[in-house]
């Protein structure tokens, strides 16, 4: 009787352990688009405002400053993003949280509003820093695999296309009102950053 009871307990423990091992995968980063890893990378960038908006703000800033700045941002940002992604592939999941994103929104939005006269070197350094940080955060937790590397390439392609198109569009703006509209867009980005600081303090 005692032996049968012990057997029942042991079989229940075994069942519990088996269930504990049957965890589903933790999809902490890229959502599967069903169209392959390149599209997964593209989709991730285009549907993640915490990545998309800072890149957009940087493209606006580069465009306001002129063609040389646009060219620098067009190549530096995607290259740094790719490097950061590759560096992060073997790292554990990292997340800068809302506060990290709001920092970039505030900084880059503020620079666009102020039409900040950054030197080309400062702009290149800013692009490199943003790309490395965001690339690392995107890459972390994906695991070192061929599919993850291809996804990182897709993501980099999306960054390149966005920065090229937006910077080129802004560079050719000559009408004063159009350049002011770009700066107003910067104020929206900075205001969103301020609001996000409030949310992160509240813990939403």
């Amino acid at each position: 009787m005692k032996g049968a009871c012990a057997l029942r307990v042991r079989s229940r423990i075994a069942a519990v352990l088996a269930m504990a091992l049957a965890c589903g995968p933790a999809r902490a980063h890229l959502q599967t688009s069903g169209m392959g890893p390149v599209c997964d990378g593209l989709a991730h960038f285009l549907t993640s405002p915490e990545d998309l908006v800072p890149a957009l703000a940087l493209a606006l800033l580069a465009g306001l400053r002129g063609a040389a700045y646009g060219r620098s941002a067009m190549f530096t940002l995607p290259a740094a993003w790719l490097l950061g992604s590759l560096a992060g592939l073997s790292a554990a999941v990292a997340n800068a949280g809302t506060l990290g994103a709001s920092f970039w929104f505030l900084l880059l939005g503020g620079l666009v509003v102020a039409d900040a006269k950054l030197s080309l070197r400062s702009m290149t350094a800013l692009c490199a820093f943003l790309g490395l940080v965001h690339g690392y955060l995107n890459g972390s937790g994906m695991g070192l695999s061929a599919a993850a590397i291809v996804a990182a390439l897709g993501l980099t392609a999306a960054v390149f296309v966005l920065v090229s198109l937006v910077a080129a569009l802004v560079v050719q703006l000559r009408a004063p009102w159009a350049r002011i509209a770009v700066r107003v867009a910067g104020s929206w980005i900075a205001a969103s950053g301020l609001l996000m600081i409030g949310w992160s303090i509240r813990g939403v």
Partner: protein
Amino acid sequence: MLLTLWVPAAFAHVQPSEAGGLLTGLQHPLSGVDHVLAMVAVGLWGAQLGAPAIWVLPVAFPLIMALGGMLGFLGLPIPGVEIGIAASAVVLGAAVAFELRPPLVVAALVVGVFAIFHGHAHGAELPPGQSAMLYSMGFVIATGCLHAVGIGIGTVHRWTWGRQLLRGAGAVVTAGGAFFMCKALA
């Protein structure tokens, strides 16, 4: 115990309600006529004052509104938010109707003080479960678009008949603000 160990997949990024957060944010400033009147009046006044007020006011407004929004999310109360919003329509409408031309700093201060009330009202009303980031972006964008509508209408200021029309629009905004003020005080 068995069920608690059956862990579902953790989706750490895109959540089902995120798009809802953006749409709710976009709708929020449009859902109250008092908000709409005041936002459009900011654009009208900016257009009437001309450069640099035409862009300083729409830049100052969202930034200061964000500060008001922060107070709202943090649960810090501001007395008489609804009265402040109605007063913004009354005062900004009157500024357009009487073509007031204060110094730029004064105009920005007036707009900024009222922006705090609008921001607080938006910030205090995030629907549960929605993305705070997208909600914030949504209501900032909607507010900016309402300013743009005001500036667009305000371009008629270059013509004599347009100036009269603009002053009439200011009077309508003031009347609307007075109506909402009565409602808020009732």
